[in-house]
């Protein structure tokens, strides 16, 4: 299977590439709209700042193609900032528009907890999940973020608590997104990516 990994200019792509290739997928760095149109699946990885991300997409004319891919039901997986970019906006970059697949705003984690939320945390399953198939309920996932989408704000299938309950896994039709880093979450994370690839086939 050919997976297009969206290259918006600042992400750490090699680890996502290595993880997907290790599972038998072919990967391609997508920097142009036509690459997204021909992909069997799209991965939207991301670290860094919300505005760098959405600006990077805009500069490469990828925003409209990602929206078109979403509308056509193309399989898509957002990772970390890639999940956050699927929302309309973020408190990290007031005034900047995200992809808007979900109308809500991504929020800053509150000052009552350690921030960034860095480290391995567990999930609370809310609905049946394709991505979490064959993964034990008490498994740990690696998180590294300062902003999050409230769990109530999207089709959340698994939540995590850090300051407030936030969306850790989102699934809607062919769209999937995770706030943690599956490519950094050991064997558990590899299983998440395997589940995504299998759901596409």
């Amino acid at each position, binding site marked *: 299977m050919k997976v297009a990994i969206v290259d918006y200019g600042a992400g750490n792509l090699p680890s996502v590439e290595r993880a997907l290739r290790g599972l038998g997928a072919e990967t391609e760095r997508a920097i142009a709209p036509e690459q997204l149109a021909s992909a069997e699946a799209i991965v939207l990885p991301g670290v860094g700042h919300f505005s760098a991300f959405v600006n990077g997409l805009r500069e490469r004319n990828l925003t409209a193609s990602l929206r078109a891919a979403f509308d056509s039901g193309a399989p898509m997986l957002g990772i970390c900032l890639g999940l956050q970019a699927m929302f309309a906006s973020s408190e990290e970059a007031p005034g900047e528009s995200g992809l808007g697949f979900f109308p809500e705003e991504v929020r800053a984690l509150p000052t009552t907890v*350690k921030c960034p939320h*860095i480290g391995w945390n567990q999930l609370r399953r809310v609905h049946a999940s394709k991505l979490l198939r064959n993964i034990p309920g008490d498994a740990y996932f690696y998180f590294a973020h300062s902003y999050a989408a409230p769990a109530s704000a999207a089709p959340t299938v698994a939540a995590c608590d850090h300051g407030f309950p936030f969306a850790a896994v989102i699934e809607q039709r062919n769209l999937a997104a995770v706030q943690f880093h599956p490519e950094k979450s050991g064997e558990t994370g590899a299983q998440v990516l395997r589940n995504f690839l299998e759901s596409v086939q």
Partner: protein
Amino acid sequence: MTLARRIIPCLDVDAGRVVKGIEFEGLRDMGDPAELAARYNLEGADELVVLDISASVEGRATFLETIRRVAEQLNIPLTAGGGIRKMEDGRAVLRAGADKVTVNTAAVERPELLSELAQQFGAQAVVLSIDVKRKGNSWEPYTRGGRDATGLDAAAWAAEAVSRGAGEILLTSIDRDGTCSGFDCELTAKIAATVPVPVIASGGANSFDDFLDVFTRGKADAALAASIFHTETHSIGVLKKFLEGRGVPVRLSR
């Protein structure tokens, strides 16, 4: 649902080999970085740190190659640093496959570096390393591998660094480093109470009880050690089972 306390092995690298110093002086060869990385990944390390302890301009290309080789072995996060002077050094390290970059001396000399790195890569990718010596009831940060006193106070410097964009503090007690006399728990508790970001305790790890101590009394979010893991004195998996049995939340690999 609990955020696990992390166990982080550290590879001090010189000219492409893992070495270990005693109290920042005197080096011993401990093996190949990629081989050790693969072993720790398998044993259940939560993260890995690689530090270029030579931090020389000539050694830069070799170190980036080491990061590449190490990153290939991992499916856990990787932090790299040593001799990071400017934004471009940080970018090179992240491009080579690290998830976070750690800075020390250059941040003391020019604290704006922390903001620049955080703006570009996010606070979660910026680790401030502080090496301290105890001075009565406080701790003084040292730079250049423990050689130069800064005249700063560790708690005040940590707080300033976080306000500028550091997302984690890697806190090393020079007094304890390589001495196997246990972590300085008063130090980590003090810094952990001062800053709102995770604190990684380092320096002095010897026994399982030292780790228990630094997570309970020391309030550390993570504990880093080198020699006791390299020499196979302790396996990370066995250490984590011990901690779990004492009520410390840890991630046990399956």
